[in-house]
């Protein structure tokens, strides 16, 4: 049992899957000798060679499009997009091609592919190195959308994603890459199933729904609120699509109140879908309005520190929202 960082969990998952299945390969910008700009693929080029860890041309559309073609041929590409902010040039290939391939070919052609991308703010990245893009993809049937919040899940979910026969979007909370540490048993095959949310802190007064970095903050906020006698239950979504509605509804049936937290901007963010599900399927269980604590509706996270702090949700803001909702 070793304590590792979230990014180390990701690196281990790719290392193990490259060893486990010779159809698996990695393609992206600077994933080779450089080991990725965040070092997620560190050492893998040396270990598996340039034909399985490929430095692509600087063009996201073709990183994904070529990956799709390779997947159609029977390979299992792991495409790295250097920052989630730069995934948009590949949007057409992901949404119109990868996501629709199985349905449009009546199951004859499938795209077993993982697209990894670091997302999220609070790291001084400004408008274009801080974005959260999960809501765009969680609206696309045919994709799976996964976001880990800790090293164990990061490893186990990525390994499951690589083995999944469908295209999986795997978004990594980059602020937590080295900040978030956790115990991960070594020498053990860790496969965390896609499609299952998890109650990570039981509570009776209200439920906080979060994922990625915001889940870490939610836990801290819940502890802070507990000091004032408010017991918040925290649910880590882990998979946004397909969404684990059963776990969500069970929690709200119990607590009667829901606070949804994400750093993505508010309008049309993924929190809206959770709120809509609760408003439709947990209506009689709700004792209070469904609250959303999110990034504000501005184009993206500004660079200057005071502005960035203004944008980002944090444990204090979440704790305040917990207390307020508990008091409703």
């Amino acid at each position, binding site marked *: 049992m070793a304590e590792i960082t979230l990014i180390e969990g990701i690196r281990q998952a790719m290392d193990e899957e490259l060893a486990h299945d010779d159809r698996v*390969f990695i393609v992206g910008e600077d994933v080779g000798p450089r080991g990725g700009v965040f070092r997620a693929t560190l050492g893998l080029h040396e270990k598996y060679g340039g*034909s*399985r860890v490929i430095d*692509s*041309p600087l*063009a996201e*559309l*073709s990183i*994904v*499009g*070529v*990956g*799709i*073609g*390779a*997947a*159609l*041929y*029977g*390979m299992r*590409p792991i495409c790295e997009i250097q920052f989630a902010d730069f995934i948009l040039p590949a949007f*057409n*290939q992901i949404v*119109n*091609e990868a996501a*629709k*391939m*199985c*349905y*449009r*070919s*009546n*199951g*004859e*052609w*499938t795209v*077993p592919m993982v697209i990894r991308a670091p997302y999220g703010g609070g790291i001084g990245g400004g408008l274009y190195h801080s974005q959260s893009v999960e809501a765009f993809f969680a609206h696309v*049937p*045919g994709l*799976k959308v996964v976001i880990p919040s800790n090293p164990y899940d990061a490893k186990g979910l990525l390994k499951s994603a690589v083995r999944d*026969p*469908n295209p999986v979007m795997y978004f990594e909370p980059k602020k937590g890459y080295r900040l978030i540490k956790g115990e991960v048993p070594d020498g053990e095959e860790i496969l965390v199933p896609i499609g299952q949310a998890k109650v990570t802190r039981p509570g009776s007064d209200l439920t906080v729904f979060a994922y990625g970095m915001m889940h870490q903050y939610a836990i801290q906020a819940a502890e802070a609120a507990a000091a004032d006698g408010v017991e918040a239950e925290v649910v880590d979504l882990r998979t946004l699509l397909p969404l684990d509605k059963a776990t969500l509804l069970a929690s709200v049936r119990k607590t009667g109140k829901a606070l949804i937290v994400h750093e993505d901007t508010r309008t049309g963010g993924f929190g809206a879908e959770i709120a809509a599900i609760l408003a439709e399927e947990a209506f009689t269980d709700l004792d209070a309005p469904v609250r959303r604590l999110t990034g504000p509706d501005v184009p993206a996270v500004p660079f200057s520190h005071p502005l960035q702090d203004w944008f980002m949700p944090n444990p204090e803001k979440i704790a305040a929202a917990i207390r307020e909702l508990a008091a409703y």
Partner: protein
Amino acid sequence: MANRDRVLDPVKESAKSKPGSRRGEATPVGKDQLLEMYQVMLLARRLDERAWVLHRQGKIAFHISGIGQEAAQVGAAFALRRGTDWFAPYYRDLALMLSLGLTPREFVLGLMGKQGEPSSGARQMPSHWSLKRAKVVSQSSPVATQAPHASGIALGIKMRGDDAVVLTTIGEGSTSQGEWYEAVNWAAVHKLPVIFMVENNVYAISVRQDLQMAVLHSSDKAAGLGLPGDSVDGLDVLEVYRAVEAAAARARAGEGPTVIEARVSRMTPHSSDDDDRSYRPREEVEAMKAHDPLVLFRDRLIKEKTLTAESDREFETRAKEQVDEAVAFAVAAPYPPVADGAYPVYVEDVRRG
């Protein structure tokens, strides 16, 4: 401006023997195969013509035609190892698909959106090809999306060390998409076994080539990406055969990709939704009909005594029978059950049934 002239008379240009043209060289294929190629072109033409009739009769809602492009498609298909090589075609490739074993029944099922249609279970519009048994990957409508897939398949072939090549086709207008550029660049950088064939019919719906590119031939784009580019007369089935055969040999030898422009004629409106009178002169269309690739090939085969007027009549009859039978079959076929609409969004659904 050179390509403007060209646009005003595509046939003259497309029939022109440019340097490197192989017109009149000895036939590279045997008599039986020549006749087989001719029969596929004939069947494609009659099937395509019938689709227009069905549309006029209100029996189908949409058709997009390959008439005038059959020679390029059949020449390319027969130059490759069908069953071994991979294909990422585009919507005008009916003759290519028939060369690869698509049946008339399967095509007409697609026109009518009937159950059993092989490419999508009738989920997609007609001519959105997919045929796993022939290694034809599924096509969508957004143009040029197939190009990076072709490079990816070729990357897989190279990684696996398999002995196969990929042919992907596209219209000249669609080469304006950055998607095509990125795909060709990938293949050039990694010397992948893929052939990018541009079926240049000078129009993108109503937009002429001179508004798409500042080069005379779409194959000239290869020069900027460090791979060979070749423009051939796409009305001459054998010239295309030779060009694709040569490109495939290069690819198999590990020498990388090739761009081939086949200069063809779009003898119909863009699709059954289009009316091309608003944007192109009738004389242009008439001139094309005077250089019909099917007629050119037949005349040549008759001149070379490979084909007799009598066997040609038999072929015509056979083709008509196949078309009639396919239409009758498709008309009688049921629509897919409504429940099919919900599946298969994920591979798990496929297993579920």
